[in-house]
């Protein structure tokens, strides 16, 4: 992959974000597809297949945005995915945790680009958000169901959420990142990573509060193991 912008610039940060967005959507699509025949209900198996198709389509349509950022030989599926998705989603609670938090973090970023000065991204963002609406409905409805499914199922789900958040929360990068701040200043993205994390956190905490289930989604503190180019945290 030929890039000209260093990672601390606005363009360099957007290359990292957009490339990783595309890789993560590809990985999420494959992980969803793994459950298309084994979800707990026929309805959710079909929904998993539909969401997989959506994610793979979003991934495919996002890679060309890199060209507008000066990357002329963008590598597809270049390992810029969350480590959480390396081995797929081990059970249905892990699926819903990723559906809620990984999909949630990525979609929040996409929503922050609908008015982007990077017009190729803004155009795709509107279409992606149309389809992501049903992903959020699916994640939140299953989250409610898992919260009401007994102590063992709920506790496992809460543990899966904590694990997913460790990875998903770091995707945007640390607070005060100069490259992200430059991207905001350049109108490439509306708000910084901290703001985006808070959007996801407040929505999810409100959902669980309504169910009477206490969870925490802390601001990441330890950035050891964080790769800013691949936007990937390895514990």
């Amino acid at each position, binding site marked *: 992959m030929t890039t000209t912008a260093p990672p601390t610039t606005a363009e360099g940060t957007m290359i990292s974000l957009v490339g990783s967005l595309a890789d993560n959507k590809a990985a999420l699509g494959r992980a969803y597809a793994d459950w298309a025949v084994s979800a*707990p*209900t*026929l*309805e*959710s198996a*079909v*929904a998993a*297949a*539909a969401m997989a198709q959506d994610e793979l389509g979003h991934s495919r349509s996002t890679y060309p945005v890199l060209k507008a950022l000066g990357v002329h030989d963008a590598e597809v599926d270049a390992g810029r995915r969350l480590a959480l998705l390396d081995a797929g989603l081990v059970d249905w609670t892990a699926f819903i945790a990723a559906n809620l938090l990984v999909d949630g973090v990525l979609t929040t970023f996409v929503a922050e680009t609908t008015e982007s000065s990077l017009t190729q991204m803004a155009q795709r963002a509107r279409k992606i958000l149309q389809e992501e609406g*049903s992903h959020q*409905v*699916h994640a*939140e*409805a*299953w989250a*409610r*169901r898992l919260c009401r*499914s007994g102590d063992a*199922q709920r506790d496992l789900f809460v543990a899966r959420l904590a694990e997913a958040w460790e990875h998903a929360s770091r995707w945007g990068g640390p607070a005060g990142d100069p490259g992200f701040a430059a991207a905001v200043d350049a109108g490439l993205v509306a708000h910084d990573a901290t703001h985006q994390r808070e959007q996801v956190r407040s929505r999810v905490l409100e959902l669980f509060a309504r169910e009477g289930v206490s969870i925490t989604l802390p601001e990441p503190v330890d950035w050891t193991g964080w790769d800013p180019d691949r936007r990937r945290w390895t514990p």
Partner: protein
Amino acid sequence: MTLESRECVWEVFARKEYADPLHHVGTVTEEDEELAVVSARSIYDEQPWIEMVIVPRSAIREAIRA
């Protein structure tokens, strides 16, 4: 996690043109109303519908039984 009670079944109706009546196209089984809508749209997406509605089976009343 079984979802087979009568209250969880939704009858799905759809049509391709406004001039057409709504036709019964199938059912979905979901506890959650919003999830039932997502499921209906995912499962019965093979036709270019212009309208699709879901109705809880428990809301249906028999008018005639032969």
